[in-house]
């Protein structure tokens, strides 16, 4: 029987069942420890980045090539017919007629969902505006499972910009299927949006809003840091909150031994450089795991069995 993601579009985390999330995570683990260079043999993947991206694009293209596939595409929508006014629907009809799957990033929300309605081949969302970035969530889940041995019954703190950070929205949506508990640590102006909190309430997920980063550190398994963007505040306001959401090595003195610090990157100054050499730092390995999570997804979408 074909795996449940075979020939499926990968658009948004709420579309995934718990079993499908686990399948990607477990497949990523297998590919990390036993690399395969044949799973995308003779496959051509369209890498369509209507908006520039460094890590997502490079890790997708690495994933394709490591699995023995080939890539065509573009890294910036400015040089495409989208610039001439072509609809995304038309662009995708054409590109999907050339390729076996389309990986895309687009500045508009909903672009991947729309593309999936016009594509002859599976569409994988590499980020649609401020909406979803499912492969980031899948690599986060893989990293959490890798470091904790499970996705169940964990306690996680999300720190920083929880309002605009799509990675934290999707990750809480995914983990709500695994009986996890959350702490949300952010300035009031960047608090978790109501609609996410309402979704968590509906599912009976436990979460607590807290002010102090230091207080939650001893209680959590995963500390998920995000960047507080200076441009979201005026100068005086920013000075008030600056430093409150910055992690330094000395703050980890009472951390659980299994605590890992994650960050979707790029980081600016919210994780001090001295954290890098602690056993808790895991964000660079997390970024490396992006290749395995994307390999797993591509392999599952394009092979009946992996």
């Amino acid at each position: 029987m074909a795996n449940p993601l075979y020939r499926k579009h990968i658009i948004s985390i709420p579309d995934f069942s718990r079993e499908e999330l686990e399948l990607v995570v477990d497949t990523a683990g297998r590919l990390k420890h036993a690399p395969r260079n044949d799973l995308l043999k003779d496959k051509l993947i369209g890498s369509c980045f209507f908006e520039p991206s460094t890590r997502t694009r490079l890790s997708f293209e690495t994933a394709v090539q490591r699995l023995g596939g080939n890539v065509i595409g573009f890294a910036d929508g400015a040089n495409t017919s989208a610039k001439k006014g072509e609809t995304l629907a038309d662009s995708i009809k054409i590109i999907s007629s050339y390729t076996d799957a389309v990986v895309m990033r687009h500045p508009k929300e909903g672009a991947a969902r729309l593309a999936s309605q016009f594509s002859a081949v599976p569409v994988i969302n590499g980020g649609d505006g401020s909406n979803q970035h499912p492969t980031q969530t899948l690599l986060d889940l893989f990293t959490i499972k890798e470091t904790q041995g499970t996705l169940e019954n964990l306690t996680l703190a999300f720190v920083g910009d929880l309002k605009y950070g799509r990675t934290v929205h999707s990750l809480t949506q995914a983990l709500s299927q695994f009986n996890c508990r959350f702490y949300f640590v952010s300035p009031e102006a960047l608090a978790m949006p109501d609609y996410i909190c309402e979704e968590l309430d509906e599912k009976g997920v436990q979460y607590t809003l807290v002010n102090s980063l230091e207080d939650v550190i001893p209680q959590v398994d995963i500390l998920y840091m995000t960047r507080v963007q200076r441009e979201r505040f005026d100068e005086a306001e920013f000075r008030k909150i600056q430093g409150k959401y910055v992690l330094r090595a000395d703050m980890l003195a009472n951390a659980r031994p299994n605590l890992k610090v994650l960050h979707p990157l790029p980081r600016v100054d919210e994780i001090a450089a001295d954290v890098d050499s602690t056993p808790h730092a895991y964000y660079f390995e997390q970024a490396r795991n992006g290749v395995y999570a994307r390999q797993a997804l591509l392999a599952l979408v394009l092979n009946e069995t992996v």
Partner: protein
Amino acid sequence: MQYTRTVEALKEGTVIDHLPAGQGLRILSLFKLADTGERVTVGLNLSSRHMGAKDIIKVENIALTEEQANELALFAPRATVNVIENFEVVKKHQLELPETIEGIFDCPNSNCISHGEPVKSFFYVKPTVNDTKMKCKYCEKVFSKDIVAEVK
């Protein structure tokens, strides 16, 4: 009643009655009833025993479907929609909130891909305690129904 003399009985078509006063023109425009080319009669601020004041819309030669009637439920849950054939009421729609709404409203999110592409807007409808929420299928943003209805 005054209006029964000035608005003649409908031979074929649909009567949308018991609209809250003030909603008649809004519904006329949202559902593009005036663009049908058929004769449309609108009554505003008519007296009603139960509602005090009400609006009414009569559209000739068009029978509203169950789906269209349910879309009305967003704005006028207590409206009655009667389909008329040969001066007789042949169908009385019971209004129920639809699960989805396609093509009536634009997505309020200006950065949503549904604008300027060859697709109809599409919302999932979710009643909550104090409001009805609408979630855009494309951008996945959730809006109060009043925000969605004001966009058009």
